[in-house]
């Protein structure tokens, strides 16, 4: 291997080690405060630190047919008896941060995607794809996030979000409504 090719290979390895499996595309939409105002306006709310026990997690999993990954839930109860919940679901590859409003009857009042992340599993293993980062630093890789706009492609399913919402409405049914 000549010196130049060795350097390229070393850089490629370094890049993929430092930025594993491409945090290539991450888009921030709203802050939690903006989502809260859009869903609940000025309504006052109180933070509840929800900690699900094993039995609750199991029962929510059974009822919603969705995996319950975390025992802790960031939730606020509003004065009218509704809820504002910050949560995340696994999308195609990565976590997607969501904000969800449930009304006093447990019905969905609003859903906002806060941060959408996506990686490109097949491509990141492809040397030709990785080559585009050769010799580029962290700054340039981050810039790529901003440069890739208006992505068109075959429709991405939002089924994971639907499953996540289903899990949260069952969490309301079994836990939150009694609080």
């Amino acid at each position, binding site marked *: 291997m000549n010196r130049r090719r060795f350097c390229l290979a070393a850089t490629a390895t370094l890049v993929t080690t430092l930025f594993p499996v491409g945090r290539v595309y991450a888009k921030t939409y709203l802050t939690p405060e903006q989502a809260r105002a859009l869903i609940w306006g000025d309504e006052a709310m109180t933070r509840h630190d929800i900690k699900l026990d094993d039995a609750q997690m199991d029962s929510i999993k059974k009822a919603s047919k969705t995996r319950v990954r975390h025992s802790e839930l960031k939730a606020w109860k509003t004065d009218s008896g509704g809820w504002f919940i910050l949560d995340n679901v696994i999308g195609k590859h990565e976590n997607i941060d969501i904000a969800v409003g449930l009304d006093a009857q447990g019905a969905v009042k609003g859903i906002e995607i806060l941060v959408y992340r996506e990686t490109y599993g097949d491509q990141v293993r492809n040397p*030709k794809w990785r080559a585009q980062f050769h010799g580029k630093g962290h700054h340039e890789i981050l810039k790529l996030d901003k440069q*890739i706009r*208006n992505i*068109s492609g*075959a429709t991405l399913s*939002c089924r994971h979000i639907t499953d996540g919402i289903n899990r949260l409405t069952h969490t309301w049914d079994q836990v939150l409504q009694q609080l």
Partner: protein
Amino acid sequence: MNEIHRCQPLLGTFVEVTLRGNQTEERLLTISQEVFAAISNIQQKMSFHDVNSELSKMNATAHQYDFKLTSDMERVLLQALELSQKTGGLFDVCVAPKLVQRGLLPDNQLATDVDSCWQDIVLTQEGIRFNKKLQIDLGGIAKGYAIDAGIAVLPGEVSAIINAGGDIRMTNWETETIHIRALESEGQLFYETQMCKPAAATSAAYFQEDGIAAIMHPKQREQAPPFSVTVFADSAMLADALTKLVYLQVDCKDVLQYFSAEALYITHDGEQHWITH
């Protein structure tokens, strides 16, 4: 100039709304509420999954008596039938039973005549009537129309980009580019291209879960060949519908010309071909 970005799970995908204008951020957020409400209204009317939607009620009753349509539904059906006529039935909103069979649509337990097609749909002043038992699915066109409905509620001084999982429409499209997702096997991630019309939509087999394509050739009723096609058109509804056509039939220059649309298709090897009017 302020700018806001919002994203909600709607139309079975992620609907992203970007608004720019001299208004305050709060005002832009309020306008975005109206955009999402308009999109959500179309989703409710045209959902095949919801038994209470206008579409489901129409599917259940229009072979028995005239079903009165809302103006949104009428507009979409008129466009769908025009597309069917101009393509000799290549675009057909009656392939639903086949999609149900493949598990891509829920089974609504409605009986259908095997040989039913778009020609059995009759639109009159009284509404719609099916001459045979059939089921309409607007999956190939309604998403685009929902985007158009979102754009339609915008005040003139606000510029917008609505991207519903890859179906895009923009108000100030002349200076914008889009990134077309490359095929999974390709070394390249995206192909960047200039917008040449207000709306664009891409069809490809690369994202279907379980490897089942949801684009169906109405005559062969088999799955379509896999490569990506992006159509640029004046409305998102047309781009959405036409992209499936170009995907099924590369030689459709006349149809694109009739609808003043342009198409870019990308082969498995990354070769790009334009079909322009």
